């Protein structure tokens, strides 16, 4: 096979604008690995930040590697080449450290795919000092047990300081400590570090954890002062189009809303904002240094940023003179403001009511009312919008057919509103997209069951029947891939065997519909005599959960209180209005009255 026959070779050759100097002498090398394609990985903000932080350390050289597409993997195999970094083409196995970003559970098999192509043994126990140290970070590490056996170190929390400290400690102790000594050292000395090999689990025949043997709880680390924490005012500007091909500036971390199904709302608490001045400075420099014509103001709930109006005003010179488009992802329904939309020439409106009735929205604490929906939709229609995208979840705790009915009624209601208030001559298009609710660790719903195939199919059939209308289209998230995500999200160590076997059965790029092979996993479960349904069941409130060795700062009792309030359909106010005593009060980072 000829390299010229490989699709999009730019994924592998580097040479982008914005690369740090790779010729510097560094005593230790680090490769940032992302278990998905270049276009997905390069869009990841965490990677953008950590890459520059590590490269700022004179002792370190940090490079990148992404999961190669099948054609390039074949090219590597045919030419007997090991998977290598983009920047200096150094084989991964020659690096001192490899850092894997675990952003979604369905990328787990790709970690093995990359290690396999690199010729590196999968299990931590099979790698001595002569192999690179494998470090994992990213959102999935709040329960990384399914892949824990593959990694030497897992970073829990925000990586800025932690990863730098681990890498520098490695550099300092290289050649002086055995791997085991080093792991013990970072475990004892660096906050947020979890060393899987130092922790073991006792489980009964049903897989319920009966005891966790661990030297100490791992405490999540996070940045306390966002203005003082490093944020790159530059970026590697790719030569090919990325999934999110734009400049990204981060307004704040955490989210005040406390939607009970949303993991991010709990694992990134509390809200920590960057100042408007700092943001203005970052945005202006980012655009000047990257040349992007789109700037995304990121956060979990951008409309909640206290300085949003001021910031948008400060950024007008970029919009007017440099023709920069502003993107405001994650705007909540109740903060939708026509001004933003107009400035940005949007034509379709995206809302996520998540549930079809007020009762169920109260259960999940999505504080959105019918009035909010009406006023936002009407204001959008009066501005000429004619397409509405609505996101819902099915299989939520306490859900009944009435709630499914509510989704259909909401769709018809929005349609009626359109014909009363429209400015556009076009017919309305309503796209409804339904995901299956996945219970995630560290949320009030971490004990809930994942809904069965039978129930979900019945609900889908009901909706299909009710929403036979040429203006309304329906789509669902694939049930099997949601099932796998649900298994991994609350999984345990026994899954390492399954993932390894599934990879051998051909699983990779599980997040890509065209590659997803559920059978590869089903066979693997069978081979190891494990029942995947065990992982989907409701958990007892007094049960030890596989991620209980983590101290996230949010009390388990608070999560239980929230769960019980959910069953009474009682809302909890946003942290912007009132402190709900989640356990982080003593940190002194939330300025609300208590």
């Amino acid at each position, binding site marked *: 096979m*000829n*390299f010229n026959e490989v699709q999009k*070779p*730019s994924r592998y*050759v580097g*040479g*982008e604008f914005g690369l740090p100097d790779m010729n510097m002498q560094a005593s230790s090398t680090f490769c940032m690995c992302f278990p998905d394609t270049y276009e997905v990985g390069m869009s990841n903000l965490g990677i953008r930040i950590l890459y520059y932080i590590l490269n700022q350390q004179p002792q370190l050289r940090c490079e990148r590697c992404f999961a190669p597409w099948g054609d390039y993997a074949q090219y590597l195999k045919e030419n007997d080449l090991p998977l290598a970094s983009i920047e200096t083409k150094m084989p991964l196995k020659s690096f001192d450290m490899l850092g894997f970003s675990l952003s979604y559970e369905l990328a787990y098999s790709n970690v093995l795919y990359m290690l396999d192509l690199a010729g590196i043994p999968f299990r931590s126990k099979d790698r001595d000092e002569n192999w690179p140290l494998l470090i994992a970070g990213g959102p999935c590490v709040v329960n990384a047990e399914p892949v824990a056996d593959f990694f030497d170190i897992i970073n829990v929390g925000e990586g800025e300081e932690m990863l730098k400290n681990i890498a520098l400690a490695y550099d300092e102790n290289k050649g002086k400590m055995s791997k085991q000594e080093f792991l013990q050292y970072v475990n004892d000395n660096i906050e947020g570090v979890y060393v899987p090999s130092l922790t073991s689990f006792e489980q009964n025949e049903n897989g319920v954890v009966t005891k966790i043997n661990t030297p100490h709880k791992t405490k999540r680390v996070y940045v306390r002062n966002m203005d003082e924490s490093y944020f790159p005012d530059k970026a590697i500007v790719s030569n*090919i189009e990325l999934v999110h091909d734009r400049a990204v500036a981060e307004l704040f971390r955490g989210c005040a809303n406390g939607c009970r199904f949303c993991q991010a709302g709990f694992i990134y608490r509390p809200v920590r904002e960057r100042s408007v001045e700092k943001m203005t400075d970052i945005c202006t420099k980012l655009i000047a240094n990257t040349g992007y*014509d789109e700037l995304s103001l990121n956060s979990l709930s951008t409309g909640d940023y206290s300085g949003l109006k001021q910031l948008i005003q400060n950024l007008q010179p970029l919009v007017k003179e440099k023709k920069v488009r502003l993107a405001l992802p994650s705007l909540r329904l109740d903060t939708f403001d026509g001004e933003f939309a107009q400035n940005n020439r949007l034509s379709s409106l995206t809302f996520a009511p998540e549930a079809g009735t007020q009762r169920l929205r109260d259960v999940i604490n999505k504080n959105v009312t019918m009035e909010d929906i009406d006023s936002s939709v009407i204001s959008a229609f009066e501005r000429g919008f004619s397409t509405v995208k609505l996101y819902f979840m099915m299989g939520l705790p306490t859900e009944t057919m009435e709630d499914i009915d509510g989704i259909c009624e909401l769709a018809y209601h929005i349609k009626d509103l359109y014909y009363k208030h429209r400015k556009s001559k076009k017919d309305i298009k309503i796209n409804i997209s339904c995901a299956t609710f996945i219970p995630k660790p560290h949320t009030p719903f971490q004990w809930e069951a994942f809904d069965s195939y039978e129930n979900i199919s019945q609900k889908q059939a009901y909706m299909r029947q009710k929403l036979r209308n040429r203006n309304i289209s329906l789509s669902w998230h694939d049930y099997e891939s949601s099932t796998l995500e649900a298994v991994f999200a609350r999984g345990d160590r026994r899954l390492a065997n399954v993932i390894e076997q599934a990879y051998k059965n051909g699983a990779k790029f599980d997040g890509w519909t065209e590659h997803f092979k559920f059978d590869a996993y089903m066979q693997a479960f069978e081979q190891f005599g494990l029942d995947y349904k065990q992982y989907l069941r409701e958990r007892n409130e007094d049960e030890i959960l596989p991620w209980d060795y983590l101290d996230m700062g949010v009390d388990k009792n608070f999560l239980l209180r929230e769960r019980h309030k959910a069953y009474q359909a009682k809302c909890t106010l946003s942290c912007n209005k009132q402190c709900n005593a989640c356990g982080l009060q003593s940190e002194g980072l939330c300025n609300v009255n208590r």
Partner: protein
Amino acid sequence: MLIVKYTKKGSACYVSHVDTLRTINRTFSRADVSVDYSEGFNPHMLVFFSPPNAVGVESECEYFAVSTKDERDFLNRFNNNAPQGFVAQKMWVTDKNPNLAKEITRAEYVISGCGIGKIKVENIFDMPEFNVSFSDKNGEKTKDYKSFVLSAKTMGDDEICVVLKYGNENLRPDRFIDGLVQNFGLGKQDYKITKTKVFANDVFADDFLDNFMK
């Protein structure tokens, strides 16, 4: 209007034409070159390119014309802000648009690879036809490309130099090599292809632009 000649080497040779347009636009933004924009709902920078280069072919002779009066220290500003491999070499200032995409019709390529000089590529002109089979999105095809080969000479055991039609009527150099594999029994391997010159009919593009200025 500024006309710029630039090279696309190393990693840059894998950047497709569409991606090149975006990359050059971003380079202007970073270099803070004030470029004129088109009118209309979706304004875009007024930049015009010579015909698309095949992906994977290194080039010493790409051109673009950009609508701007901001010529001060242009080459340095461009080069300091471009990705690796994109290097501006030379520029012309004019008030007319030379329509590079239409005028440029031929390209010279140097192709190297073990043994390629031994096949006597000159013999192409003695053949009644130069048929090349290839597949595209419409399936398998065979086409006679003899009239697309304008000159061909051997430069040594491992190198040849050819001039092929380029632009609206185009023979991609990788397809030309496929033709050599099919008609001359050339071995399949990763040949290195460099586009060394382009022409407006038979006038070297740099000379064409010098004349255009007059």
